[in-house]
């Protein structure tokens, strides 16, 4: 076909339907190829067998070619169950503390004067934009045996306890305590910012109406503010809980190597042990565990962020 004719057809296609197909199609294809397919491969890998080849996996000899041994080991081998429990409990505790600290902070942000508020919001956003790794590192500095922070706390501890309990330094590093503390530290902005956004959207005349009818400020918070912020609380909480459960960096740097979290187990199986099928099986198990929280999250995130 001649060139002008072809160009014409292209332009007509573009104008009518082509442009929207492009807009949907390009990101769709990208995500399918680079996200969905790799994910499906992991699922497939979880039922393969380990093999001394490169890459170190193979689908076993006879029908049905799948090996469910990996999933079996999840339940029989102590390591995995403990790792899941550690991860879930650490993530849960971190979530609770993020809520306990983050909610009052977000609420406080809605109550200060507008000029103070923009500065304070910048101060909350600043850690958010700073390197996550470096923020973990900052706490490593404080928790170390010889840091001024540790010395301070140890002295305070020694003051308050009998002499026989005295310590040279508080053992903060390489423990679940350290993991939870650092997770709270790094995930806190993720809790504060969405909570602040949804609290800010609440109607202040409702507070006035409650006060007008006889309720004191704390009662107003309990009766009016809190019930309305529940979707935001749930969404924010899950936004912390779900990624925290699968954390790798924080447990590796400050965690107890003896009781690893599931993220670390996955990485170890993959890198150190070179057991790809097992790593995949653990990953799939983690995702299955997270499916229900993920769905609850999308439901409440829509409620919290949706228009009134």
């Amino acid at each position, binding site marked *: 076909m001649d060139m002008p004719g072809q160009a014409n057809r292209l332009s007509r296609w573009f104008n009518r339907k082509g442009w929207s197909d492009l807009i949907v199609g390009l990101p769709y294809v990208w995500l399918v190829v*680079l996200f969905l397919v790799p994910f499906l491969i992991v699922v497939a890998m979880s039922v393969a067998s380990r093999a001394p080849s490169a890459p170190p996996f193979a689908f076993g000899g006879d029908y049905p070619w799948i090996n469910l041994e990996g999933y079996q080991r999840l339940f029989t081998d102590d390591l995995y169950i403990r790792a899941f429990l550690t991860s879930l409990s650490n993530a849960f505790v971190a979530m609770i503390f993020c809520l306990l600290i983050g909610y009052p902070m977000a609420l406080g942000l809605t109550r200060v004067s507008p000029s103070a508020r923009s500065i304070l919001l910048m101060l909350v956003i600043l850690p958010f934009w700073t390197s996550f790794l470096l923020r*973990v*590192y900052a706490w490593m500095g404080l928790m170390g045996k010889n840091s001024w922070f540790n010395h301070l706390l140890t002295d305070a501890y020694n003051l308050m306890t009998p002499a026989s309990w005295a310590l040279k330094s508080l053992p903060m590093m390489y423990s679940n305590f350290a993991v939870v503390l650092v997770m709270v530290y790094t995930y806190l902005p993720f809790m504060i910012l969405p909570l602040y956004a949804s609290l800010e959207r609440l109607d202040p005349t409702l507070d006035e109406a409650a006060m007008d009818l006889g309720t004191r400020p704390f009662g107003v918070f309990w009766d009016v503010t809190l019930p309305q912020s529940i979707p935001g609380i749930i969404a924010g909480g899950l936004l912390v809980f779900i990624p925290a459960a699968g954390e790798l960096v924080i447990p590796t740097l400050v965690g107890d190597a003896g009781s690893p979290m599931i993220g670390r187990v996955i990485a170890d199986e993959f890198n150190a042990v070179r057991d790809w099928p097992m790593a995949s099986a653990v990953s799939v198990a983690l995702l299955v565990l997270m499916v229900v929280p993920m769905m609850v999250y999308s439901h409440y995130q829509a409620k919290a962020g949706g228009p009134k």
Partner: protein
Amino acid sequence: MNRRPLFLITVLCFGFAFFYIPILSMMVYSFNASRLATVWGGFSTKWYVSLFSNEQIGAALLLSLQIALISATFATILGTMAGIALARFQKFRGRVLFSGLVSAPLIMPEVITGISLLIFFILLGELIGWPGQRGFTTITLAHITFSMVFVTTIVQSRLIQADRSIEEAAMDLGSRPWQVLKDVTLPVIFPAILSGWLLAFTISLDDVVITAFTTGPGSTTLPLLIWSKVKLGVTPDINALASLTVLVVGIGVALAGWILNRAEKRRAADERLAYQANQ
């Protein structure tokens, strides 16, 4: 009327102390003359000096910036498209799957994404011969994939809030839908797109886990370099690097805030002038 209860102010103070004491402590110790990062040995700027002459760090920084620049740009383009698709097109084939694909990476643990991409690249290499060596390209592809969804979230929510009537007016005046997009919609949501780009840039610059899995020999990004050093413990040159980062980001955030504030003030002043002129 008591709208600023003492309790909330106290929590705010503690909260900010919690945020900043570690950072400030780190910044102070970056001037520590002693090598023992946690014991003060006198004031010195030698760690900053060694930082600037460290070739390894320079190369890693350059690599990270290149990857971040490219991946942020592509992630913004793709993410904006996805945001437009979800916010403006009501029904299309596979919409449910699409919105699932767009929300999953947001909360999926990075280690799983990392493993899946690594396996994918290795198998792909076996199958079609590419990628032969993992490195710059694979890292960039991975970064684009998981940061585009953040852009989508921002753009999508901005589009939902945007005023549809100006788009309808444009169509009424004869523009085809894609022209409306180009001439009216995109310019109006430009600030959201820009903040999406910034977010994607920061995410890419900062990423450790996914980069660790999709990298290859010779491609060490700055986070990977820091990661390997930090696993060995606290060192003062990292203190210096971290302090510089905080400073740069702090200036950036303050600048952005100041610019936004000025623009807002100017807009309010213009509105006031117009109102008075009409009295």
